[in-house]
């Protein structure tokens, strides 16, 4: 059984149909890429899965449970985590506190008030910063980081609660070539720990890290399969050539 099953998702904004019956299946520990031309509905599909948007029709099942109408917080508590397309780290807080904030999200209210989990979470926060090469700057404000480092911090925050499914919306947006390469390296080790859905424009990047790809066009799934299958798909090539 797939970890995530989104079936027949339709999302209509006024007169615009952003999603028109899109499906997305992700298995446990699978890295799944979501690609397509601009305006094809990738980010909308991601938002419908994460709960940022409620689909007009269709269902989202996560771990066998229907979460189509669940709030983002409920989905997060079920084991889903999202990195937004636009970097949204908390700039006034230190890097350490950004990660701690993510880690303590499911701590009970009395434990938060009496700071009961601060000690326990300390090592996990430091390990997460270490993994993303940010440990030396733990005490700096997040606003002092470069754009690429903020993207890493946000991935670290999304990964910190040990989700079953990590959703990354354009994690390499605005990064240099070197930063993209490092991002790919940073993502590889998480393969054993969770599934990943990634929206990305950089096809080389996505080809290197993903097991399967779903290609969207005009709100519908154009094709879905292994990286080799998609690379040789005439339908996909036609769409990309048409847009080029």
């Amino acid at each position, binding site marked *: 059984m797939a970890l995530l099953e989104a079936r027949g998702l339709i999302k209509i904004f006024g007169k615009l149909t952003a999603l028109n019956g899109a499906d997305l299946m992700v298995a446990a520990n699978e890295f799944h890429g979501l690609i397509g031309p601009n305006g094809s509905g990738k980010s909308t599909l991601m938002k419908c899965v994460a709960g940022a948007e409620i689909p007009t029709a269709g269902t989202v099942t996560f771990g066998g449970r229907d979460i189509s109408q669940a709030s*983002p917080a409920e989905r997060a508590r079920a084991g889903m985590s999202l990195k937004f397309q636009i970097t949204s780290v908390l700039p006034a807080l230190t890097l350490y*506190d950004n990660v701690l904030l993510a880690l*303590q*999200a499911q701590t009970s*209210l009395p*434990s938060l008030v009496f700071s009961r989990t601060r000690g326990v979470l300390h090592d996990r926060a430091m390990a997460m910063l270490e993994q993303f090469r940010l440990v030396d700057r733990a*005490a700096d404000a997040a606003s002092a980081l470069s754009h690429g480092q903020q993207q890493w911090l946000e991935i670290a925050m999304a990964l910190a609660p040990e989700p079953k499914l990590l959703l990354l919306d354009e994690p390499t947006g605005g990064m240099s070539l070197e930063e993209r390469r490092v991002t790919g390296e940073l993502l590889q080790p998480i393969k054993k720990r969770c599934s990943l859905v990634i929206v990305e424009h950089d096809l080389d990047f996505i080809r290197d890290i993903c097991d399967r790809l779903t290609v969207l066009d005009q709100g519908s799934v154009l094709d879905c399969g292994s990286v080799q299958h998609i690379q040789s798909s005439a339908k996909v090539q036609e769409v990309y050539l048409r847009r080029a």
Partner: protein
Amino acid sequence: MEIVVLAIGVLLPLVLKDYLTVYATRVLILCLFALSFDLVWGYAGIMSFGQAMFFGTAGYGVALIARDLGVTSILIVLPAGLLIGLAFALMLGGFLLLGRHPSSVIFVSLGTLTGSYAADRVARGWYYLGGQNGIPSIPPMSLGSYDITEGPVYYYLALGILLLVYLLCRFLVRSQFGLALAGLRENEQRIAFFGYQVQRLKAIIFSFAGAIAGLAGSLYAFHEGFVWPNMLGVVMSTQVVLYVLFGGSGTLIGAVIGTVAIEAVSFWLSNNYQDIWPIILGVLLLLVILFRPAGLISLILGERERVGNFGRPPGEGDRGSS
């Protein structure tokens, strides 16, 4: 900084004349009120333009308890004031904050403003509450057979309660709960995606702050000896916003400094420039807000120190905002 302010507070009645001690007591109670607004706005980012509603309803509540039931014991009236503030904040907060989706800042601002305005109108129009004149001649608060009247004793009572509440708030805002509040203030949408129940967090801090405002309102009512509709209304609600903005929102000491500064400057100006003092005060407030948007506290503390740390990055101890 906090120690210096506390030392001044402790020593002040020794050097002040009696009438100034009474004035300083009023300022201490207003500091308590300012802390309640600072918690909701400065720490949690909830814009409440109706904080006086909790201050005033508690004031009216304890005035009625004293007038109609003859109960003035400090052991009953202060907890009663606290509970009245809490109950009204729970009701208004439940309505404004506990929807399925997070409420917008505008919705909460206007909702709290409307609540405060409506409470003011009800008090003005209800004969039982004394109408426009309010409830005069409230008997003094008592402890056993001892009446706690205005003067040094009331001053130290207010200072003691302010200190206790300050320390409680300080503990709270430096805790992991304080970090969650910082997340709420900085980007509530983001933290919802971590799994935080944003609306519930907001309702909790809003109610807690309402209880503090209620405590302040009950102290104020007994200190002044009467309550009147302005205690509930928009003017008082705006005044507390100015205290916190002037001193520096998001720091507890900033709220205290802002209240003391505005009240002290108002007092001095009104004695020396009787006709034009409100204009001078208004210009002064505008200048501070224009050139020091983070308030007077930003003259002493940098942004990083004001926000503080909640965890323990390497090489640093715990250090929260004050």
